[in-house]
């Protein structure tokens, strides 16, 4: 990432800033960036059992998801809040992105698997081969 260092906050400071923006980087932007780095990205917490279930679902389908444990990330708290705002509901995790696009929380993931839309989406994103 191309950054200009000014002031005392180091390389994470964005080049243009207004007084109101968070100087350590927008958590939503970070979420979107992380989500686009892999075909299947799961935001999770290591203690959350529903997150474990969604991980097992993808592994059971032969998909290898990339998992981000928010409780092990220094900026996890902010990302958690941003995810709650994004989903419009609690809890923040688990949340699944496929091909960089938001699929949703557990109920949306299960619904899309049952109605047959998840598998084509995974194939399109290159996460599943025939």
């Amino acid at each position, binding site marked *: 990432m191309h950054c200009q260092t000014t002031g005392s906050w180091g390389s994470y400071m964005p080049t243009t800033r207004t007084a109101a923006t968070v100087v350590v980087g927008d958590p939503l932007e970070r979420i979107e960036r992380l989500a686009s780095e892999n075909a299947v990205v799961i935001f999770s917490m290591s203690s959350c059992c*529903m997150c474990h279930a969604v991980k097992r*679902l993808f592994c059971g389908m032969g998909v290898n998801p990339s998992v981000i444990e928010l409780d092990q990330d220094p900026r996890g708290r902010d990302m958690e809040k941003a995810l709650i705002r994004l989903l419009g509901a609690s809890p923040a995790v688990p949340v699944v992105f496929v091909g960089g696009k938001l699929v949703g929380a557990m109920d949306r993931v299960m619904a899309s698997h049952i109605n*047959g839309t998840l598998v084509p989406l995974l194939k399109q994103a290159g996460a599943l081969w025939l």
Partner: protein
Amino acid sequence: MAIYEQFHHISRWGDAFNVDNSPNTGSSTIVPADVRLNNKAEYISCEQVEPSISDQETNKPADKIQRRLAQNREAARKSRLRKKAYVQQLESSRLKLAQLEQELERARQQGIYKSGASGAGGFGLPATVNSGITAFEMEYTHWVEEQNRQICELRTALAAHVTDIELRILVESGLNHYCNLFRMKADAAKADVFYLISGIWRTSAERFFHWIGGFRPSEILNVVVPQIEPLTDQQHLEVCNLRQSSQQAEDALSQGVDKLQQSLAEDVASGLCSGNYRAQMVAAIDKLEGLENFVSQADHLRQQTLQQMVRILTTRQAARGFLAMGEYFHRLRALSSLWAARPRESA
């Protein structure tokens, strides 16, 4: 025994049989098909005996013997019918007794649950929790009655070859009825998730197949699909996919619940010898709240599977599917009653 006393007994038995013959009595009471005929026979024979008593005084001695023989035959016949009715009455009473015992056991469990909740002290309002479960119990009883009514309606409609439009309405009602159940369960889960998980609200045979607070979607597909053949190739493919995806979703949720069990056990068991367990209890409560989430996702999966099934199938196939499903659960409930009523060796 005086004749009029006998008639009184017969008419009482007749009333009892009329109650049993109602088609929508909770879980089924198996009553032999010829009971109604026996009732009519009882009433008819009651009427026949009376006139011959008054005739006795007016006729000659030879006829008297004939009449007496006829009366004996009649009395013997009545006696045989009475015996048959009595045995059948015993059988149905035995079934009823078994059902009552089951209900009593359930009520006793509720009683234990109530005293347990008030004994725990401080975990919310025991009174509110109880009323949520009591409300669910009542609503569920009505739900089952309505389910039985819908099964009969579906069977009649399919046999009568009604139009697809009318079948569509029945299929939609069937789907809605299940959605209502899931709504009721969501409220009950807030009152006490353990109650739903235990399956105590269902009959014993249903409980054998219990999975995270209810039926297993893939199992229902296995039951229903053979009943609605033939399917087109496209439908076969879609049904296969549905079977596979529901199985995968179930496995995932099961593994999630296993993980929850494991970490709950770890929380509760941490520092057993040190004595102080406040922190462990707090962690355990957090985990238990996660359990509500699993029941909710399991019900969501059930609903999604039913909706997808309706999407894949034609109206007529979907109607047969709902009939098959409803009948399946009805038979499991009947099986529970029969099992409870079976003759056992006294200890």
